């Protein structure tokens, strides 16, 4: 138990734990102190100064986010001095900000705009500083647009990139009025070590960092009668989308989302969860094949641990940071790209469509997927496999534009052929999900029995711990897998690239001896992706994870290999996992990238 101390906030005495910041103490007692540079995911910066409060007896005001309470503090959060100063600070930020709100992508979801509205800043007394600066918009990246004229220098993006991701693509340069958030040598975001994970976007309070949106392109495709527009939705979208459209963060809106997509005019609405199941078939088989090659054939070229390859942010990270370890990656494409390749082959054939006319759209919780779809090797169908990638946020915008009353929609099921999924596909959206899904299938494949965890829930790989470990011992395998008898499969799960870094370093140093590792670029996995609704914070991530696991529990089928459409695609089209066709369509290769 922490020691309790007594303080007073706005004249009300309260008892709080020692070392609580003034900001947290106020929140606990129902007093809201506005913030800008503060974010629950990040270390305290205390640089915007919006959260200043008055401590009686002190001449200067104090940043509530950065100051711990002390016994007997008499704190005023709304005194005249505080109000005047806070108003000044908001006015100063606005004077430096390109406040062309109606033409801003973040209009309506901007923390600075919200503050300006609360404090009713109606006049422009201070001199506008934007025209004096030579701002250019960096829009070379397929994922991220960076507009410095909207930046308020809160450094949330910088802290995100350093603390959550350890990438440090964004940093602070220069000082005084020239101070800005920029990249290595002020190059374009596309030309530096950036994983396109979009966490900076998710943590930006204003419109300085936003995703490159493809909303109009998708509307055009839908309107084009010569095109057959097919859409896939990622597992994590269904637990996030509701937040943008009036629901809380633990609400699953799968059926409503499908209904909305149909109303938007997509010709077919299908599920990335289907290719998530397919990924498990391919990746699980790949893992077992690698084990066999190592243990039976003693092939020196086979690399362990094998690492998952579903997260394009992680892929770009390893290509930049550990180019010598690319052989460790599973060759499986991500579920999005598997879907894309099949959409213009398997689906086109089954529906008797000219693949030329198919426009393949994906709805992702991710901005790195935009980059991934753009990779030159992702053309295995003979066309660009995925034409447009929209984030969860962009889909919400389309639904609002279309005038769909989302709350009142009924539930609709995905279209057939690539719309069926199992609980294993669903949990891809949470950290540890790919691991859990893979173990459910691989274990059964080897032993013919269910994975030895209560109700198939492999809880050691769940939760928000940065690096998680699990060991599965294989006993009494089927005849063809006898070489695995007694083998302890050591697995690890890392989410957030800063944790990926830790695991990679432990592999390089030889400290760890894992066989299989799941890596996800974003904290919490895809449910905390850079393309998810803003805000995303630890509490929201936890709730989205609960929703995902609830969805899994509620599904009749919870193992990828049970998915009838998976059985069908192998029967009709792919033959078997790692078949020649699979290799052509579902697997890929990686390229080393420079560190600068």
């Amino acid at each position, binding site marked *: 138990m922490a020691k309790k101390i007594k303080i007073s906030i706005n004249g009300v005495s309260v008892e709080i734990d020692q070392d609580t910041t003034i900001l947290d103490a106020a929140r606990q007692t129902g007093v809201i102190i506005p913030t800008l540079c503060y974010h629950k995911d990040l270390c*305290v*910066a*205390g*640089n*915007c*100064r*919006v959260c*200043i409060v008055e401590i009686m007896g002190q*001449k*200067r*005001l104090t*940043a509530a986010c*950065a*100051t*711990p309470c002390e016994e007997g503090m008499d704190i005023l959060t709304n005194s005249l*001095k505080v109000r*005047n*100063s806070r108003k*000044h*600070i908001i006015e*100063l*930020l606005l*004077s*430096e900000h390109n406040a062309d709100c109606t033409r801003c992508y973040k209009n309506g979801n901007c923390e600075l705009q919200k503050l300006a509205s609360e404090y009713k800043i109606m006049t422009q*007394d*201070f*001199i506008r*500083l934007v025209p*004096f600066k030579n701002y250019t918009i960096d829009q070379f990246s397929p994922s991220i647009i960076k507009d410095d004229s909207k930046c*308020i*220098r809160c*450094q949330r993006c910088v802290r995100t990139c350093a603390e959550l991701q350890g990438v440090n693509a964004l940093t*602070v340069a*220069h*000082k*005084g*009025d*020239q*101070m800005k958030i920029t990249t290595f040598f002020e190059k374009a975001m596309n030309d530096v070590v950036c994983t396109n994970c979009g966490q900076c976007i998710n943590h930006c309070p204003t419109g300085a960092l936003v995703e490159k949106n493809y909303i109009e392109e998708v509307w055009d495709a839908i309107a084009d009668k010569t095109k057959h527009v097919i859409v896939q939705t990622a597992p994590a979208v269904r637990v996030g989308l509701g937040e943008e459209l009036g629901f809380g963060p633990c609400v699953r809106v799968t059926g409503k989302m499908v209904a909305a997509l149909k109303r938007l005019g997509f010709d077919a609405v299908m599920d990335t969860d289907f290719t998530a199941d397919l990924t498990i078939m391919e990746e699980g088989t790949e893992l077992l094949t690698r084990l066999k090659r190592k243990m039976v054939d003693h092939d020196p070229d086979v690399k362990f641990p094998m690492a998952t390859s579903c997260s394009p942010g992680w892929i770009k990270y390893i290509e930049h940071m550990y180019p010598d370890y690319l052989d460790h990656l599973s060759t499986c494409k991500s579920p999005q790209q598997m879907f894309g390749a099949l959409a213009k082959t398997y689906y086109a054939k089954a529906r008797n469509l000219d693949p030329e006319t198919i426009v393949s759209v994906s709805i992702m919780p991710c901005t790195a997927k935009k980059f991934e779809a753009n990779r030159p090797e992702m053309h295995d169908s003979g066309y660009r496999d995925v034409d447009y990638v929209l984030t969860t946020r962009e889909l919400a915008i389309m639904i609002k534009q279309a005038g769909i009353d989302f709350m009142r929609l009924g539930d609709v099921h995905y279209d057939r052929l690539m719309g069926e999924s199992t609980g294993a596909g669903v949990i891809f959206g949470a950290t540890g999900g790919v691991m859990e899904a893979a173990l459910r299938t691989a274990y059964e494949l080897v032993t013919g029995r269910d994975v030895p965890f209560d109700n198939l829930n492999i809880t050691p790989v769940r939760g928000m711990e940065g690096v998680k470990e699990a060991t599965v011992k294989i006993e009494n395998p089927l005849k063809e897998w006898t070489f695995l008898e007694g083998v302890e499969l050591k697995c690890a799960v890392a989410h957030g690239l800063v944790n990926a870094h830790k695991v990679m370093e432990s592999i390089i140093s030889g400290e760890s001896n894992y066989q299989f590792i799941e890596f996800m670029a974003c904290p919490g996995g895809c449910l905390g992706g850079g393309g998810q609704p803003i805000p995303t914070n630890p509490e929201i991530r936890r709730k989205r994870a609960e929703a995902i696991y609830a969805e899994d529990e509620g599904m009749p089928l919870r193992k990828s290999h049970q998915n009838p459409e998976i059985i069908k695609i192998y029967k009709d089209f792919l033959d078997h996992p790692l078949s020649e066709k699979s290799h052509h369509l579902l697997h890929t290769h990686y390229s080393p990238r420079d560190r600068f």
Partner: protein
Amino acid sequence: MTTNYLLKRVDFIFKNENDWEVILSKSINRAPQELINELISSELKGRGGAGFPTGLKWKLSAEAVNDTKYVICNADEGEPGTFKDREILSRVPFKVLTAMAVCGHVIGAKEGYIYLRGEYHFLRPELNKAIVEFEYYCKEIKFDFSIKIFMGSGAYICGEETALFESMEGKRGEPRNKPPFPSTSGYMGKPTVINNVETLAHTFTIFKYGAKRFYDLGVQYSRGSKLFSVSGDTPKPGIYELELGMSLEDFVEEFGDGDTKAVQVGGASGFLVPRKRFHETAIGFQGKLTGISLPTGGSMMLFNSSRSMFNVLDNYLEFFREESCGQCTPCRVGCQQLLKGIKAVKRGEKNAQYLDKLLRLTETMQYTAKCGLGQSVANSFSSIVENFREEMIY
């Protein structure tokens, strides 16, 4: 040279004394608490600008429990109009080194650093020689203390103690949130004493002559002597060690050119005192002195009637606009607004009342900026604008 009995010259700092070995050996054989008490009773306050009681600073770090502690000499002398520290380091470096080692003895630190202003790289070779000699002696008497020089890179903000730590740690020189304070969490998160060069030199005097000799100089709340860097419209610019508590009138009598219009005390982050206030202004730390009393790094800039106070302010603001680290809103944007604001008033683009809005803005900057830089921009701005308002407008 005229002498004024009201303006008492003192000669402690630059007095060439070759007995540093003696002072060092003597001091490190005294109990830390005794040395702290000596400093506390001398009422020595930091000579860098903020004026924190030195004895208390050492005491807090001595009380902090940690195996590793540091002593840092802040030689990032960047305040416009201040040029005393470099003279101390080049003329009497051993006083400073000795004081650092004694501080190490008091608080339990084995390592000291001199954070040397980037522009002072020319001092480095001689200073290094002194350090080698000093460390050799320490070894001889079996006293474990080493000193290294850390070169700054030219940012004014890095003189702010926590920004200085960040800079030494290889990070961007940005001030930290306080608390925690350096005495418990400074360089590398360890308890750290960070003192200005001159402050350390004064501790040498105190350890040599005892607290009373120091305390007897000066006035209440402002004890001892201080180096003043005198510049501007004066026939005798230079560095002078003077007793604290003198009136500005006496100072101008001594150093002015007969036409002194105003004196900027404490550099760009200090105050401007107009002629009509000379007689009621005493030079010392903030306390119960008559008139405004001044936080001071010791910069005294004299301006005569040929000077435009608008240009003076414009120059200071230009300096702050560039030297703000840019981290916190009030300082980064505030400085830009003040600079652009006075220019706009001068050009007639904003009316005279806009100056009042800017004065209120400086008040906000004083209340809300993260560190001393942003907080003290108000000093020169308000003292110049209030006293020379007409010059700002016409």
